[in-house]
């Protein structure tokens, strides 16, 4: 199947055979694809290779046959995006998250939209943590693992703004005693559901909650980027 002018981002590239790269691309209409870019590791293909770096909006032409696609052409579909500093580390986290949680050739157009909107936001002063939590929430939603953030999963009652909750993956928030470790305020969960930025303490608790949920969907695995981000942030 020939695919033309497909909006895409390169998530990762690894050397493949003598002179080629095997790219993991997030495409809008075909989900994540393994794409072979032939000959781009040759010296004279330096320009082509530079274009295949992560975070750049591309329009790509492909031939998809079986498990892997072959790259026929790639051109920029917008200004090159630079993610300096922590934004770059956060971008690598986004890419690891997408590759680890999605299968190849499993299309999720809302995920593509969320990814494309999140990248430029990583550079904004609004706060990296909040940007990442929103992306994680939208990613899970797009993959059909959406969070339940409106009622107590045990009692069925609406969340109490001032109540304390623990979030159980694939179940939802359940009431816990005040002062329980890793507890979340009902108000912060509701804010998260309504896309309002919670308090700093709420954001920190949401980070822990999202890690638990992501770990659950990874089958208990860890993301390498968590260690990278932890190291970068701990030196503030």
């Amino acid at each position, binding site marked *: 199947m020939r695919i033309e002018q497909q909006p895409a981002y390169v998530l990762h590239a690894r050397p493949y055979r003598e002179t080629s790269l095997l790219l993991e691309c997030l495409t809008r209409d075909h989900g994540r694809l393994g794409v072979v870019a032939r000959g781009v590791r040759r010296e004279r293909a330096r320009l082509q290779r530079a274009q295949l770096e992560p975070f750049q909006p591309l329009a790509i032409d492909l031939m998809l046959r079986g498990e892997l696609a072959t790259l026929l052409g790639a051109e920029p579909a917008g200004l090159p995006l630079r993610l300096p500093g922590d934004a770059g580390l956060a971008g690598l986290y986004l890419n690891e998250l997408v590759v680890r949680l999605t299968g190849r050739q499993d299309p999720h157009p809302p995920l593509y939209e969320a990814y494309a909107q999140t990248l430029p936001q990583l550079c904004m002063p609004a706060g990296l943590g909040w940007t990442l939590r929103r992306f994680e929430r939208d990613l899970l939603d797009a993959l059909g693992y959406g969070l339940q953030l409106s009622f107590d999963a045990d009692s069925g009652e609406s969340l109490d703004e001032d109540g304390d909750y623990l979030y159980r993956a694939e179940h939802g928030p359940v009431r816990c005693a005040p002062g329980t470790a890793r507890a979340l305020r009902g108000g912060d969960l509701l804010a998260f559901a309504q896309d309002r930025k919670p308090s700093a303490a709420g954001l920190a608790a949401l980070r822990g909650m999202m890690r638990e949920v992501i770990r659950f969907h990874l089958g208990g695995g860890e993301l390498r*980027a968590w260690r990278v981000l932890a190291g970068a942030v701990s030196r503030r």
Partner: protein
Amino acid sequence: MSSGSPLLADLIEALRCLPGVGGKSAQRMAFHLLERERERGLKLAAAMEQAMRRIGNCTRCRNFSEEPVCALCAGTGRDRHVLCVVESPTDLAAIEQATGYRGQYFVLLGRLSPLDGLGPDELGLAQLAERLGEGEIEEMIIATNPTVEGEATAHYLAQLARAGGVKPTRLAHGVPLGGELEFVDRGTLAHAFGSRQSLE
């Protein structure tokens, strides 16, 4: 192989691990060694055997070395106040050959790349932090590649340096010498434009 020699077939297959060597070149090399260079072929085999078995990594800079501490780290001829961090031994060799740099090195043997399983531990960053903490180094030159992963690594390293009270610097990158703007890729041009220098 149609020659009926399993050893020859093994040799040809083994030679194919070299970069740029396919089946045809491997066969040419094997025939060449057997027909004309037996003596030197044996030397090659011996050198290969020794190198593969005995070359490890320097405990200070992680570059290739058969001693626990390599000659460059152990010697007294280099400036101990400057440390240059590179991704690979190849990059170290390139800097040695192209510049008059006289300081020390640290080789990451990779770059931060979560999807390749490369994080701070794999790059020996605790070891690097320890070295910065010794107090001798004043400047850390970050010479990772100008790729997305190389830049992210540079940012991480800069934080590590600042935490250790060391001044981080970064190789400049921009338009290649002898290049014309028209033919420079957009990313490089944007970067060169952004980091333009005053001519005053």
